[in-house]
């Protein structure tokens, strides 16, 4: 399958994406900008048709900001995002709205992402109204069709979100994204608020919908075993940067970046007999307001050398499609 991928051009091409949040003084704008939180700092991702790209990292690494920047839910500071030959960052008004028909998002928290005062039917119909698709009757038919696809019953149309459990709500969150027939769905931690038995239902649903509708997912999550299960390729983020990127099997066979190694070894395995050497990282994530110089990981890296604090490592291809940004491999 990876051979096919090579020949195709990417559906979504993200290059040099940056998102800096300005930090102002106590009096808002009065004190001027004191610095920038570099939430996303120069990342590049290619997403191919029908593929799932997993973006993993710990809280504060910028993975959600990256996802939101792609849809311009927050305005990126710099970079380019090409979809269908168009640079998303140059679009405005109507063009941008039309583009969002193809790019949709599923949010993490199914409790706060559905309007509690609207009935499910209305929530699911809203994207169609905004995109002015079909007349009233066609829209209702479409909503019914999509509800069935995500495994809900037609009589749920008139219910309110509070009448449903977390897993059911996440199905509606997914249905809302699917109703306009998108090509790409950005899933921002879609299962992390759910219990394991419900989590597997949603993962299976995501996978079967992908097969059926040929969807591409950008799957953002912190749970490494979930990302492994669903992704074709994985990018590991640390402090606003992608430190390693590889096809899933290649990454699980060998982790090259010291951060990836530590992250993977920290995952507790549901098997008491498998005792493994844990790499315990010292300290905490540095503040993105003041990221370390050179390699952002050098303050916690067990293999840090002199050069690591001076120069930023380049992305290097170590195996087929397996990229790492680390001085150990230069």
């Amino acid at each position: 399958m990876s051979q096919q991928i090579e020949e195709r051009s990417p559906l979504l091409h993200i290059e040099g994406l940056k998102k800096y949040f300005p930090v102002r003084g106590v009096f808002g704008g009065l004190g001027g900008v004191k610095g920038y939180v570099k939430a996303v700092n120069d990342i590049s991702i290619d997403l191919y048709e029908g593929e799932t790209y997993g973006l993993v990292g710990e809280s504060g690494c910028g993975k959600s900001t990256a996802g939101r920047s792609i849809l311009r839910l927050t305005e990126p500071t710099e970079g380019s995002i090409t979809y269908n030959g168009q640079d998303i960052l140059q679009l405005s008004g109507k063009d941008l709205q039309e583009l969002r028909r193809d790019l949709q998002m599923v949010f993490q928290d199914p409790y706060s992402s559905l309007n509690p005062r609207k009935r499910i039917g209305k929530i699911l119909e809203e994207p169609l109204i905004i995109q002015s698709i079909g007349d009233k009757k066609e829209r209702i038919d479409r909503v019914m069709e999509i509800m069935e696809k995500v495994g809900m019953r037609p009589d749920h149309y008139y219910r309110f979100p509070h009448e449903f459990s977390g897993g059911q709500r996440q199905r509606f969150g997914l249905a809302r994204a699917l109703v306009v027939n998108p090509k790409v769905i950005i899933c921002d931690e879609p299962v992390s608020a759910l219990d394991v038995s419900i989590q597997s239902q949603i993962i299976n649903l995501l996978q079967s919908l992908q097969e059926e509708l040929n969807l591409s997912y950008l799957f953002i999550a912190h749970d490494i075993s979930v990302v492994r299960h669903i992704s074709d390729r994985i990018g590991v983020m640390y402090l606003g940067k992608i430190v390693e990127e590889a096809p899933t099997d290649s990454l699980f066979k060998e982790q090259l970046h010291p951060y990836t190694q530590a992250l993977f070894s920290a995952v507790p395995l549901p098997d008491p007999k498998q005792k493994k050497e844990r790499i315990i990282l010292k300290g905490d994530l540095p503040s993105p307001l003041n990221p370390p110089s050179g390699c952002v990981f050098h303050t916690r890296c067990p293999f840090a050398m002199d050069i690591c604090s001076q120069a930023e490592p380049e992305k290097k291809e170590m195996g087929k499609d397996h990229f790492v940004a680390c001085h150990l491999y230069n």
Partner: protein
Amino acid sequence: MQNETLLEVSNLKTHFGSDTGFVTAVDGISFHVEEGEILGVVGESGCGKSVTAESILRLHDEKFNTMYEGEIKYKGENLLKLPLSKMENIRGNEISMIFQDPMSSLNPVYTIGNQITEALLLHQDISKKEAHNKAIELLELVGIPSPEKRITEYPHELSGGMQQRVMIAIGLACQPSLLIADEPTTALDVTIQAQILDIMLRLNKELKMGVIFITHDLGVVAEICDRVAVMYLGQIVEEARTIDLFEQPLHPYTSGLLESIPKMDGDRSKKLNVVKGSVPSLDSIPQGCRFASRCPFADELCLKEMPELRPFKDEEGSKVRCWHAEKILNERKKEHVSTD
């Protein structure tokens, strides 16, 4: 070596009053904790695992429509019968608790030094100076760098992992014999979780305290627990040594849960196993086995009569609440042979 039993809970029930009558969040659970042992309590949200922990310390106010039934014997004394003044001597001193969310469990307007010494000054007859020194020692014990400086800081100046360390330091201040940890690592990232689990394991060995570790993460259970109790809808459905539970889950709920976690190795093209449906609400509890509506093996008996938690004959120390555990296990063994 036979360890002494520290805590023995028998037939504990916790009822909460609501507009529509009493809701029984914990319904007749029994378990025990030995000295120096880590007991895991796992289950999904709403299964009553936190309420169980809170009931042990009687944190739910009995004045407001909460009713406890059963017995919680700590070192031979029934905690449910103790007057509240005596209970205060137990809380934080003999038995202490670490909560899930360190950000909301620490008081934002006191320094962390204040919050650690509070427990010390309350329970032990020591001077402020001594308490201060002890607090620094505790911070060092849980791996906080430069504790002399940190002790004067406020919770918001620390990261989540550091805050949870402070919570552990408070929990350990009076050297309790039993520590109840309610999802202590759920709010943390995996690399920080690894640090915290490491500390807890070390302290458990060094200080010989019993730990009740409440979590929904079976991976964490496998890493640190000696024994496990699996809860479903207010009841324990299975209890076993950790090794046995993961090797040979007896209850269909346990095996369903284990199979629905994505794995870190092996084939990933297969669909994940699904426990169908969702947990029934506490005010409409089914009359038979509580898991029957979601169980692939359920028959009429399961729908009609509730099974008791009973010892399982093949394995020592294992208990299961299922009518068909033996049958299911045999079938699974046969399946195993045929696929090999």
